[in-house]
């Protein structure tokens, strides 16, 4: 039986398609997305892309300037550092550590935060209130302070600094989720579910979670930019990633001693972090305005 559509010319995009259509209208957001995808690619493929092992020391070429400078060499595109290690490979591996660990820790914080936030939002009374106040006070403690305490107890290391940042990020997710869930629980479609006899778990999975997706996407981009800056700041203070592991903030602080004779060693990792955070922020901004415009139309 041939199907015919009466309204063939009409186009009804799905909600996700709608966001994408709004999102791609902004060229800046698209460029940001491209840069972000590039960093995702680097995070996965860094070992294949880098020409040298990031920790191999080539004593014949110490403090070689980048290839675009007069006495640079094309065999080391970004030059070499004070121990003769290839800066290009180190930047790729550093970006992989910084970006990859930030993405992982944001996902962990998201999962824990949403779980706790849903519990706090769906429950009422003392339980929810205690949780709120506990998290509020945790939110007020600066990230670096949490990191210092965790490093003092467990020692330095990438995993420990990730743990500290997860602890600092969770309250934001909890807060957002809690207020959103609380708002949604008052709405009629949830009431309808309740009248149909749906359990709380079912209400959450089938009704609230799908509508929460956008909020979480925006919140995650915010958290990701904070996480990248914090991870590299802890690396910079040598509380984060330790020596055999290459991390952008850490390699920046290691090259401070030769900063005057080799400024590119400070400039390149810093610029890489900056570009990463900028891309995340631009994508986040684009996503937010796409969501806002979608609601207006």
């Amino acid at each position, binding site marked *: 039986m041939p199907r015919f559509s009466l309204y063939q010319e009409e186009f009804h995009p799905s909600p996700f398609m709608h966001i994408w259509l709004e999102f791609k209208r902004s060229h800046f957001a698209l460029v940001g997305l491209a840069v972000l995808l590039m960093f995702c690619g680097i995070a996965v493929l860094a070992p294949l892309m880098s020409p040298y092992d990031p920790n191999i020391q080539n004593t014949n070429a110490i403090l070689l300037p980048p290839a675009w400078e007069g006495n640079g060499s094309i065999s080391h595109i970004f030059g070499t550092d004070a121990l003769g290690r290839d800066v290009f490979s180190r930047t790729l591996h550093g970006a992989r550590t910084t970006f990859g660990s930030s993405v992982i820790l944001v996902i962990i914080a998201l999962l824990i935060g949403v779980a706790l936030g849903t519990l706090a939002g769906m429950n009422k009374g003392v339980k929810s209130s205690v949780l709120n*106040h506990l998290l509020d006070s945790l939110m*007020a403690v600066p*990230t670096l302070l949490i990191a*210092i305490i965790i490093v003092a107890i467990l020692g330095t290391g990438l995993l420990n600094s990730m743990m500290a940042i997860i602890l600092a990020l969770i309250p934001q997710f909890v807060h957002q989720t809690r207020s959103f869930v609380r708002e949604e629980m008052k709405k009629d479609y949830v009431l309808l579910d309740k009248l149909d006899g749906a359990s709380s778990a079912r209400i959450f999975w089938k009704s609230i979670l799908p509508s929460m997706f956008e909020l979480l996407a925006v919140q995650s981009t915010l958290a990701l930019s904070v996480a990248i800056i914090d991870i590299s*700041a802890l690396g*910079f*203070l040598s509380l984060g990633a330790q020596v055999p592991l290459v991390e952008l903030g850490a390699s920046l602080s290691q090259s401070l001693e030769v900063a005057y004779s080799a*400024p590119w060693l400070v400039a390149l990792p*810093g610029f890489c972090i*900056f570009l990463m955070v900028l891309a995340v922020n631009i994508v986040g901004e684009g996503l937010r305005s796409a969501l806002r415009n979608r609601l207006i139309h």
Partner: protein
Amino acid sequence: MINLLARYVNLVVLTIAALILISFSLPYLFPGDVLTNMSGIVPESEAQRAALEGVYKLNSSVFVQFWYYLNTLFSGNWGVSFSSQESLFDAVSIAFPATIELITYALLISVVVGIPLGFIGGIWHHKPFDFGVVTFSVVSYSFPVFWLALIFITIFSLQLGLLPLSGRVNLLYDVPHHSGFIIVDILVADIPHKADALYDALQHLILPTLSIAFVTTAIFVRFTRRSIMDVMEKGYIDAAKSRGFTTKQIFFKHGLRNALLPILPLMAMQISTLITNAMVVETIFSWPGIGNWLIQAIYQRDYPAIRIGMLVVSVFVVTLTFTIEFLSRAIDPARDKFERATI
């Protein structure tokens, strides 16, 4: 109002109690000897160990120890630093005002620059100027603060040689310690070349303050811009227009005041970011503040110092945050419950 005040006081007291409890448990969690972690003294003989254990009530129950800890905390007898053996109370009371001074100026700059920029951007939104404002805020929000500080040092200290690299004031000026705030101290001090000292201190302040203010300004710009855009779409602005007020009247009497309301709670949220940035910037500029002190403490595994420093900083941040939140709710009772703002 009284009810609200009581709730916030209750909240602050409970939070501080929780923080004290955490700081009480830290010496047990840190690696090494509990007694050394608490007192900062490595006992040289059994007799000294026994004496110290007696002082810290280590043989009694946990509750007695906690009670004793509370007493020492409130009497200002905070023990000595593990590495330098100087009193922690004195060290904190010298270091902490330096940090407060730094973040006060940074916050001041961000308010003075960020709020007007955000307003102009929000009023003329989607115009070229607004485009510039948004670009500025996104770019400066993305700067890692330590890299920014290093760039400032490279440009202004090393290349141009305009501003000093580190420290608070040139050692030539012997400024006596009164309040801990260097500007105030110079103003009240009775020293020769007062104007020169003041000029020198201001020069030392510029780079650290700017590095911290850069990121905070971006956040203020974004919030203010959003806030004014929301307010200008409200019904009462239309009502004012229909009554024939001029644009200027509408903006200053109706728009500005209402748009400023959500900015106060925003300030509360930024304090912990501000402190984190200040701590990083302090280490780079060797600013003798609490952040630098704490980070040196962690390098030297100075556990008594970490414990006290953590308590002081977090109590400060919590008290300030809740005070500002209380003020913002007292000023704007229409907002039933303050929700954490999204950028």
